[in-house]
């Protein structure tokens, strides 16, 4: 078993990055995720593992720094919160187009605009439906605990390199700030430059005389060429849909009703499930862990066995669109959400189930 520690979600992300063998972190301060860079600067991984940590002049610069680092085959990441992630969308689109591996952590806060610094899940659409310009997707992981904040960093890097794609961890201000015990995975050494060159033959890191030059770009001025780029990306997303779906079912076997929730909402629904069952309501919880690829078939299988589904999100109703598309129209599906940084209580969620699904 790995090392056990009590940590904030943001700190777990930073520690996991060091342990995963990350080569570079580039970020810009924003609440509620500033602890990621603060932890890294205090831990000084540049002295221990050689990992670079740099405070950029803006989120725009930070995301383009990881674009540059990723283009050379290095393992790079950034973290930010909603307004900062909006600024990064251009860079994420470029990385998706140029097929570069990178990890982006979004500790979501309420919006729109400057919004609030309190937790929210209102960036679901932005994360799973593209966000920036053009037809692209990212693999999106939704941790529901500090433990998963840690584990998803390693998983995210693995998948980013496997598929040569940006990966986003879509968390929120509560999971970023709350402290829980974490079992940390063992240190993985950073790859040597030679290993990077060998592992990433596509990367631009200096052309030896034995090969032609590598070009990292998302540009193809020839429409037929650009269509080929798009078809290749879509084919890659299909493979991800087939192989990378992650989800969790809690007390779904005998359920008459179903909560569908991700991240922090799933934690709240877990408690609500217990409260409802204590009242004699047989409810289960379906938790998508990957938001793209969405566990469409899996939620449909469970969803079509129950009498009604309540999708609980800290937003005005975003993931519910994917739940409806997956489950179809035979089952009643309603949304319950709080926004602006308000975290719903488990009691509130049970009441919503009783009123909108069972009674409604």
């Amino acid at each position, binding site marked *: 078993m790995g090392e056990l520690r009590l940590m904030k979600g943001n700190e777990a992300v930073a520690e996991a990055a060091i342990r995963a063998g990350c080569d*570079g972190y580039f970020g810009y301060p924003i609440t509620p995720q500033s602890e990621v860079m603060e932890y890294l600067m205090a831990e000084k991984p540049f002295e221990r593992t050689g990992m670079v940590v*740099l405070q950029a002049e803006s989120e725009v610069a930070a995301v*383009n720094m990881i674009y*540059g*680092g990723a283009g050379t085959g290095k393992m790079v990441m950034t973290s930010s919160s909603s307004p900062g992630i909006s600024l990064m969308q251009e860079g994420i689109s470029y990385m998706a187009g140029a097929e570069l591996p990178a990890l982006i952590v979004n500790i979501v806060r309420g919006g729109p605009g400057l919004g609030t610094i309190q937790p929210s899940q209102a960036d679901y659409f932005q994360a799973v439906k593209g966000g920036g310009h053009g037809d692209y997707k990212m693999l999106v992981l939704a941790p529901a605990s500090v433990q998963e904040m840690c584990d998803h960093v390693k998983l995210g890097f693995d998948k980013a390199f496997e598929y040569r794609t940006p990966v986003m961890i879509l968390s929120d201000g509560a999971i970023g700030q709350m402290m829980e015990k974490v079992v940390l995975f063992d240190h993985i050494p950073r790859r040597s430059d030679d290993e990077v060159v060998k592992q990433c033959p596509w990367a*631009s890191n200096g052309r030896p*005389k034995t090969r032609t030059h590598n*070009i990292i770009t998302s*540009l193809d001025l020839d429409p037929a060429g650009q269509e080929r780029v798009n078809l290749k990306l879509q084919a890659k997303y299909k493979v991800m849909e087939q192989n990378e779906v992650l989800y969790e079912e809690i007390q779904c076997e005998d359920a008459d009703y179903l909560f569908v929730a991700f991240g922090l909402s799933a934690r709240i629904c877990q408690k609500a499930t217990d409260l409802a069952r204590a009242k004699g309501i047989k409810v289960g919880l379906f938790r998508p862990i990957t938001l793209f690829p969405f566990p469409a078939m899996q939620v449909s299988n469970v969803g079509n066995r129950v009498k009604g589904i309540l999708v609980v999100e800290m937003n005005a109703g975003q993931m519910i669109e994917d739940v409806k598309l997956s489950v179809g129209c035979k089952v009643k599906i309603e949304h319950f959400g709080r926004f602006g940084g308000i975290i719903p209580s488990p009691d509130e969620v049970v009441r919503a189930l009783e009123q909108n699904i069972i009674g409604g």
Partner: protein
Amino acid sequence: MEEQFAKTEIRKPENIVYKRTDLLVDRPLSYCPGCGHGTAHRMLMEVIEEMDIQDKTIGVSPVGCSVLAYDFLDIDMIGAAHGRAPALATAIKRMWPNHFVFTYQGDGDLAAIGTAETIHACNRGENITIIFINNGIYGMTGGQMAPTTLPGMRSSTSPYGRDVPTMGHPLKITELISHLPGVYYVTRQAVHTPSHVRKTKKALRKAFELQKENKGLCFIEIVSNCNSGWKMTPVQSNKWMEENMFPFYELGDIKVDGKLIEKKEAPVKE
């Protein structure tokens, strides 16, 4: 047929005294005939070839006329988003500190949309080389006003000339960044005559040599023509550049060995 035969006769190894560097890809450039980009590309590649560092060089191309620079420069390249080349180069150099990293950017890319990235990469003293092609116009998008467009100079978005009270002053970004302590070597050159080309090549060589010594950021501005955008013949555009661009963007070294060169400011033409 006879003529072709004659050409092969002439192209004997013993007759070759000067040839295209192998680091330029053998394909037609996408630049307009008469444009300075081709010469700047060639000087850059000659320096990298002479230093024998192509296996340790990573270039960052911009958005603008030289967006396709990676198609012509036979080294590893990464194409940046508009203005972001210095941010990419920052990370690339930090990831590969023993490699040579350069950006190649135009005036709109470097001095308008990328101003923040330019200034902060300079201020951090990143050990990279920035090559800045200033032709006072947005070439690729069809000749719009650039941050470096001269007062009174016509462009497609200043068709009656740049009106300073409403459109602002041209930005001397090279002078601006030269005052930052992270910047070690700043020079302004041109590539329209053989003597200027030689000076530019010398400056490029100096910048790459300094990069080896981790002295800080080296910044080479090349004032160039844009005969298409300026709506002139190449010869006219070079003459116009000498008469109008050079008095405002004075050629020569601005900062050497980390020290500013004392110079009288050229008067701003209104």
